[in-house]
């Protein structure tokens, strides 16, 4: 479904040039649950952003659902991203000024959907993360775990083919982290491809494949036998 071919992403700050991704090649198949691990600063988030079309590689080719998008403009990326990719972030990134339901709805606004349909989708997504009763709370009024579940709801409300999670449990205690991971597992089983960055080996093991990174390169690509 996703295929990176010798992707480079370099950042230029005044005179220093950092290669956040250095000739990374990676293939992600539909339905996979893939974990990315590696020390801080090795390029995990950058890789995720490139995969999710919110960043463009400096060089290399990227086949996103059968189409080379490495040279696409921001506008073109936006159109391809719509309703196909969902994001979950370490720091939740909920909009402070919107309540739970409205935050989830944001993901549907740009897809072109009737109001009624949006409502039922939002309700369905909230149901799935178990937060239907918090529909009209503001993000501030929720715990971290709840906020992240709202973010997960927002990510899956568009029924994306691909869900990208950048350290979704990084800001959560283990109980809440496990809950979020259970959710992601369920979503994956329902057919959504998931790429997740994590520092936790335990969480990484929930995936069926673990990719280890170091200094912008993939150093190990490990398939895990399905744990029954």
């Amino acid at each position, binding site marked *: 479904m996703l295929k990176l071919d010798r992707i480079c992403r370099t950042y230029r700050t005044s005179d220093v040039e950092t290669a956040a991704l250095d000739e990374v090649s990676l293939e992600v198949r539909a339905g996979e649950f893939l974990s990315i691990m590696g020390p801080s600063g090795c390029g995990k*988030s950058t890789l995720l*952003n490139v995969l*999710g079309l*919110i*960043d463009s590689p400096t060089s290399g080719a990227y086949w996103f659902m059968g189409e080379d998008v490495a040279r696409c403009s*921001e*506008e073109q990326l*936006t*159109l391809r*991203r*719509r*309703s196909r*990719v969902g*994001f979950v*972030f370490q*720091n939740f*990134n*909920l*909009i*402070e*000024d*919107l*309540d739970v339901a*409205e*935050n989830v*709805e*944001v*993901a*549907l*606004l*740009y*897809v072109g959907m009737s109001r009624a349909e949006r409502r039922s989708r939002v309700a369905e997504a909230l149901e799935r993360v178990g937060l239907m009763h918090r529909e009209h709370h503001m993000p501030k009024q929720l715990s971290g775990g709840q906020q992240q579940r709202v973010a997960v709801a*927002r990510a899956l409300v*568009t029924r994306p083919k691909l869900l990208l999670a950048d350290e979704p449990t990084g800001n959560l205690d283990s109980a809440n982290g496990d809950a979020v991971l259970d959710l992601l597992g369920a979503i994956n089983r329902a057919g959504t491809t998931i790429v997740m960055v994590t520092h936790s080996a335990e969480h990484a093991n929930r995936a069926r494949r673990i990719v280890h990174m170091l200094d912008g390169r993939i150093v190990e690509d490990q398939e895990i036998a399905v744990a029954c």
Partner: protein
Amino acid sequence: MLANYFAAAIRNLLRNRAYTLINLFGLSLGFAAATLIALYARDEFSYDRFVPNHDRIYRVGEIIEPPGRSPMRLSVTSTTDAEALKLAFPEVEAATRLIPSNLRLSAKQDNEGATLASFWADPSFFDVFPLSGVAGNLANALSQPDSLVLTRRAARQLFSREDVVGETIRVGPDTVMRVAAVVENFPSNSHLNGEVFLPGAASFSPLVTLTAEQRQPGALRSENAYTYVRLRAAANIHDVRSRLGAFTDSHVSGSVNGTPIAKSYTFTLTPLADIHLQPRSIGDIKPPTDVRVLHALIAVAVLILVVACGNFISMMTARASRRAVEVGVRKAAGATQRQIMIQFMGECLFYALLALLPAVVAVELVLPAFNGFLRREIAFDYLTDPRLGLGLIGLTMLTGLAAGAYPALYLSRFKPNAVLRGTALTPQSSRARQSLVVAQFAILIALLVATFTVNRQIHFAIEDRLRLPTDQIYLASEALGCPSSFTDAIPTLGRVKAVTCVSGSTLGFDHISVNFVSPHGGGNVNGRAAQIDYSFFDVFGIQPIAGRLLSPQFGQDDLLRKDPATADNPTVVVNEAAARALGYSSPADAVGTFARWQRLSFMDGRLQFQGQSSSKIAAVVPDFSIGSVRDVIGPTAYYIDPTVSARMVFRFDGGSVQQSLESVRELWEKHSSTAFQGMFLDQFVNALYEDVLTQSAIFTWFSAVAVVLAALGLLGLAIFTAERRTKEIGLRKVMGARRTDILLFLGWQFARPVLWANLIAWPCAYLVMQRWLQGFAYHTDIGILTFVIAGALALVIALATVAGHAMLVARAKPVEALRYE
């Protein structure tokens, strides 16, 4: 989708209540100020447009340019011109004339009476100016020699009611007239202000008597009447104007020193709607407005809006870090930059509309005072006047879009990956914000310099130039004359320092010419005749620069008192301008020499030029005029001539001026049955600069608005900076900075943009104000001090604004500061 945006906008607004209030308040204030200026400008441009066919009606005026003198513009013409124009130009459909009257009017029982703005008018007046009638028949209301027309206001004033058709009114001491009709008042946006229209057909009407005088062979042309012509619909004004020269040559007769008078005459035809915005001319009924001042005001309105928009932009972008997450999430969800832009533009429009409401309320509240101050009837009927309502909405939308464009672009450009990492804020944003504050303060400083300069010029015009106690000098009206039995009794009162009897030309109320033959060759010197008596110089505190003042002990000084009909000339005192024009290298050189000159005198009941004769120049005095500083003081010749002197000027002795005036009035009433009238010099001078005083007040007020707006902008910057710097300040404190160090640090941060602003503002303000001052023949200069004070004031405003906030920030405990984030 809209609901989602709206929820975000509203909650963002509520969450940042202080910001929002400052932001909306600034925008409202800007709207209110701009609306007031727009209403004022609209009123100024609307003058006389209520008159039907105003585009075909022209006022006839004159520009007289005697050889060697600067041109005089007149809004009056001779009483004979209307008919002559009608005969010479078939395009003229109707012509009508007005001559102001100062007769007292009184309703039957009331003997005090009132002086209302009255005009003698031709019967055709209401044909050209069809005011709507309230009662009576307007069509031939003025054709009877004993019937007059009142406006509703005049009727109310005289009778305390409006249904007064058929009532009688005493006009002057011994004429009774009947009210033939009552008409609607002239609106304030008309160059005319008539309240009473007297029948020009009456045998003693100046329209009749002056016309008869002017028709006598050899009569000197005199300008007394306002003349209006209405052209036929098909007429071509350019065509008419091109034939005015030939008309002048055939119509204006006579010659001075062999040169035809017609050579120095130019007739003008001013479209009715343009009269109010013409340059000043002699005889203006209301002081006209200088279009440049209107343009300046409009510029101020735009600047105020720019400053208000600046604040808005500053505030919107200052909150950007808070909104960045929203942008990032929306973009990650597939929103395009355009969609985000539209969202934020919409939000700005919404804010702008929200700011409009208080602005409308504020204008409603302020308008009565504004109208009272300007003596206008400006209406704010945005509900019934679609153009006003739409204009208001349009202005708001435009401002909202202008103010929203940058924040929208700025916010919508955030890269989602950067935003979601929390590194979205680029350092340029704070530089842009700094530049905004610099621009705002530059505007503020320039406005302050303008305000100071206007006020200095007013002070110069009213105080410095005259150097007279203007509240102790009283100018009696011309109608009183100077009966010697009265003036001789004045000293017995002991309250009057001096009284003088002079001509209107002396005071600059009208112009009587003298012609000097230049002793050094080079043609004639045309100047102003100032007919005075011996105490004139005393009353106005004028000392000679060289020579001696006039005195009855010299026979030649006293010549015209002894023999008014003599062809010889009396001794003269000339002003510096005359001495210079006559070619003397210094005032002292002129003293004692003899000059050949011609004067006007009353002969056979009318003014005529005498033949040339020579007389001695006794002294040279400084150039002096109580008239406007706009006008150059020309060559002036002072000589004793009681025949045309009919204005008394009293100078009281500093004590209780009102009581002194009262005792003079009592003395007058013993000598005469007419009422004692006149005005103090300060009233006269204030009336002279009414427009400048108004401008000054307007500029002062709107500068104050700009001050508030700039302060708000700075406050926004302060809050923004402090917010971004809490951590930095906390760290500085941890590392040992004291509270004063922090205050100094913050103070410098805010003083810097103001100092930069001076660099931009000073040269701009200098150029503009220099040009403004050039409009006055006599003016102050813009001292360097003006700039320094304006700059210092701006700095004080800036520091006072941020002081409170800086204090709070500096006082915060470092741990608290570091706990944020």
